[in-house]
């Protein structure tokens, strides 16, 4: 309900990856197969991505209508994470109350809200699926149904997002940690780990075959080019980190981690800590960016917070303050409201405020009708999908870095194109990429700290063909 309240405040979406998913979902709905060659991305290149999320959206889109499905389904899917966190927390803490509190925390991790509300993100499917697999993994030895579910979901997980690799890494780290701690790993868990790892490897080799052949293990480096990785790190501070995870989640989670690892030595806590370890590892090798890694850590901490809460209330029962239990419950909920829910509301509001405006969409739709089909449009890299999805024209750069050899060079060139005042240098780059139009949005102006493109004062070379409050489009005429 919380998410739906926000997403239906606008018809548009808050990230360009949403438009990537819209385009690919509609393509699948029309053609039944994923788009493997994108004529618009980087002027034309192969596209490698796991298509399950798009297939799911395509299915619901054909049933409910695309407008409704694209708004509703991702939010519905990510909401399932709350139930899954409840199940895992209950399994770990054996306390329904603590599990409920954990579930509440997981539903309001500000960073998760920021990355998923109104963004049609594959994380909406990846996170619930992954954490449900963790749940099945914890309960493998209890009932055969968990084994069957685990096996079936192992086929599906790698088809959702390449970050499903984190799940495989977690299982490997988990096995290694148990071995080094001289804790017996049950046969069923060993078998499940073995199966999931090899199946994940196989599916990823099939999907990313071209990228592996081209880059080998260097594919890890190609996931996020260095300038963009540094960009994502630029505005990170400790306070921001605490705010985006939620201080209650952070504190309770860390305490829960301590107790679970060192005092109670629970195997399920080792699994969750293996997840955190694998996330830190993939962030270190720049396979994923830090904010994305924090999402996983945030959910993991919310699960672990159930241990702290349970321990606290168990301890309380032994003290004189046991009759004040309800007050403590109330205090806990208040803290969650203050430090998780309210920041989540703020973040959700920001997402809606920062949505791509109708003016920007109109500008791109104008471009679609008024430019030739093989035109190349310059935009910032994180607007590239808007160019290919809405304007249906070739972009210079977008967020799909795999199989693009010159990403860093393009990133730097795009920056020069927007900030360099000298026409000669700009024209050289325009010719290099065959740019026909320059899309200048308000967001781009803010991003680069510019008011206008200085070189566009030369009317013999640059013609302002479209303008509204949020966007301008220049045509290159020389």
């Amino acid at each position: 309900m919380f998410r739906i309240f926000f997403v239906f405040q606008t018809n548009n979406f808050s990230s360009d990856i949403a438009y990537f998913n819209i385009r690919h979902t509609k393509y699948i709905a029309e053609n039944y197969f994923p788009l493997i060659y994108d004529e618009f991305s980087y002027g034309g290149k192969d596209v490698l991505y796991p298509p399950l999320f798009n297939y799911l959206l395509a299915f619901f889109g054909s049933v409910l209508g695309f407008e409704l499905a694209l708004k509703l389904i991702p939010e519905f899917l990510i909401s399932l994470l709350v139930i899954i966190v409840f199940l895992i927390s209950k399994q770990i803490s054996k306390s329904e109350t603590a599990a409920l509190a954990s579930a509440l925390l997981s539903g309001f991790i500000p960073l998760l809200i920021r990355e998923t509300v109104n963004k049609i993100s594959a994380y909406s499917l990846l996170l619930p699926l992954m954490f449900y697999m963790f749940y099945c993994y914890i309960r493998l030895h209890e009932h055969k149904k968990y084994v069957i579910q685990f096996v079936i979901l192992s086929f599906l997980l790698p088809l959702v997002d390449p970050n499903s690799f984190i799940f495989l890494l977690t299982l490997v780290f988990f096995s290694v940690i148990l071995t080094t701690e001289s804790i017996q790993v049950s046969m069923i868990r060993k078998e499940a780990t073995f199966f999931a790892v090899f199946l994940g490897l196989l599916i990823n080799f099939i999907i990313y075959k071209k990228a592996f052949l081209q880059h080998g293990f260097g594919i890890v480096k190609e996931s996020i080019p260095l300038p963009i990785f540094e960009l994502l790190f630029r505005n990170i501070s400790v306070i921001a980190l605490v705010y985006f995870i939620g201080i209650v989640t952070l504190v309770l989670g860390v305490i829960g981690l301590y107790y679970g690892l060192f005092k109670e030595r629970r195997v399920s806590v080792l699994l969750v800590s293996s997840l955190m370890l694998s996330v830190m590892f993939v962030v270190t090798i720049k396979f994923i960016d830090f904010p994305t890694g924090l999402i996983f850590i945030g959910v993991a901490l919310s699960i672990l917070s159930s241990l702290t809460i349970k321990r606290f209330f168990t301890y309380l029962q032994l003290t004189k303050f046991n009759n004040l239990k309800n007050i403590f419950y109330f205090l806990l909920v208040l803290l969650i409201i203050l430090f998780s829910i309210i920041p989540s509301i703020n973040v959700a509001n920001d997402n809606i405020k920062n949505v791509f405006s109708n003016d920007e969409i109109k500008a791109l739709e104008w471009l679609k009708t008024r430019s030739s089909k093989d035109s190349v449009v310059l935009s910032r890299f994180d607007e590239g999908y808007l160019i290919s999805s809405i304007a249906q024209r070739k972009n210079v750069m977008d967020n799909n870095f795999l199989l693009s050899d010159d990403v860093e060079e393009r990133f730097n060139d795009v920056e020069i194109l927007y900030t360099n005042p000298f026409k000669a240098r700009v024209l050289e780059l325009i010719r290099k990429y065959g740019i026909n139009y320059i899309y200048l949005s308000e967001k781009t102006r803010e991003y680069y700290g510019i008011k206008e493109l200085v070189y566009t004062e030369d009317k013999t070379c640059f013609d302002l063909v479209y303008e509204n409050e949020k966007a301008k489009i220049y045509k290159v005429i020389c």
Partner: protein
Amino acid sequence: MKMRKQRYTRLFVDNIVFVAILFLSIILLSSVHYFRYKNGNDILIGDYSFFNLRISNEINENRIIPRYDELSYGGRPFTYLLGWPIMLVATSKITGLDLKLSSVLLPIILGFLTVLILGILISKFTKDKRIKNLVLLIFVLSPPFLYLFSASNSFAAVLFLSLIGFYFLLKDKIIFWALSSIAFATISFFSFFATIFLYLVLLIYILMKNRAKIKWFIISFFIVLAIFIYDYYILYIKFGLPEIIKFKFIESTINFGFQIFFSELGGKFGLSIFSIFLSMIGIYVLWRQKYRYFIVYFSILLLIFISPYFNFLLFYLNLVVAILAGMGLLNLIDRKWESNFIKVFSILVLVFGLIFSGLSFINQMSLIEPTKRQIDAMNYLKTKSNPNDVIFSYYDKGFWFNYIGRKNVMDANFFYAPLVNERWQDSLDILNSKDIDNTLSLLNKYDVDYIWIDESVRNKFYGKKEINFLYQLRYDPRFKLIYRNLEVEIWRYTRQI
């Protein structure tokens, strides 16, 4: 009569899987050429195929072994090992096919025979048919097998001769030992380094397992030594010592370093990751008997460390990996799993992974050089140029230029190549040149008439940029673009404007 018939029927039924795998090997190897043909690419694969075809053509036409090669390095002594070209000529004579088709057929026949011999050898060591069938299946699906017996190259014969030599060696009669000696000695006509490696492994095997054959080994070794001394002494007398290669030559694939071991990561004929994993399980199974299989562990380590420098050793490593992988897979099938459900799916995943590696490699092979566009460019160059013209490009194209009857500046036959170090350095200097005067003086030094720039040269030296030598080609009037398609550019170099 009825019992004899029953015995033969039983023999057939017992070996039906083996027979099926033999046919599968032929189908897989043929499919490489079929898909290349379907994609419009030449049926010959790589660069050595063209070298072998040219030499076998010369032998076939002239009926003698030439003494001087006018085309390679602009002219050099004929110091090549001729085992493979002679085999091609013999195959052509026997089958009546032309040499090009023989270049396709001969590796496939050898592949079939290799699988047959390997199956017989495994049967000697174990009665368990499942191991034999699994090993052979993994072997025929492996990228190194598919590469080795699709591309016309001498190592196809080397591996076959190694196995048949070993088969004869295991027999008890002296006549078979003699045949074994002949097989191993014949390898020296195909590869010097393979012979050295094989005798090293044989020595270790005989010392550890079969000391009774030490006399045989010494005799056989001295026969090969005599062949080497005779061959190389003549070369030494005529030409002196060969130049020592000073440049770092490790065959580069798309992904350098340890990734050459893995076909999934771009290794030219690397192993499948799934077979490597299964072989680790196989090693684990053997490890229970520790030092009894010391030779296996030693061979693997030796092969792993030396393979990056002598790529042909990957073919031997593949053999060892296939055997261990078969053992590993059988261990997984036979052992008790806690969940039968996971067991079935895990084994299916691994088998599918092996099949995927093989099929994916066949797809890659159907697309590798030379492509149709490169062949078209070569044909154009042949029509436009004269027999004495020199064509310059990166050394790995040299054999192609010789194949169309033109001279190259450098190719991959470094042994006794004239001024090989200087040519290597000069080639790199040209390709990386920023100074037009330097470029011109080097091109004049080698009397270059044409320059070949294709996608692989661009990717190696320039990426997507028009820099260095490419820039000079584009803007200096002494270079004229005479041919271009989506992959290849051919430039005519005129000394005077």
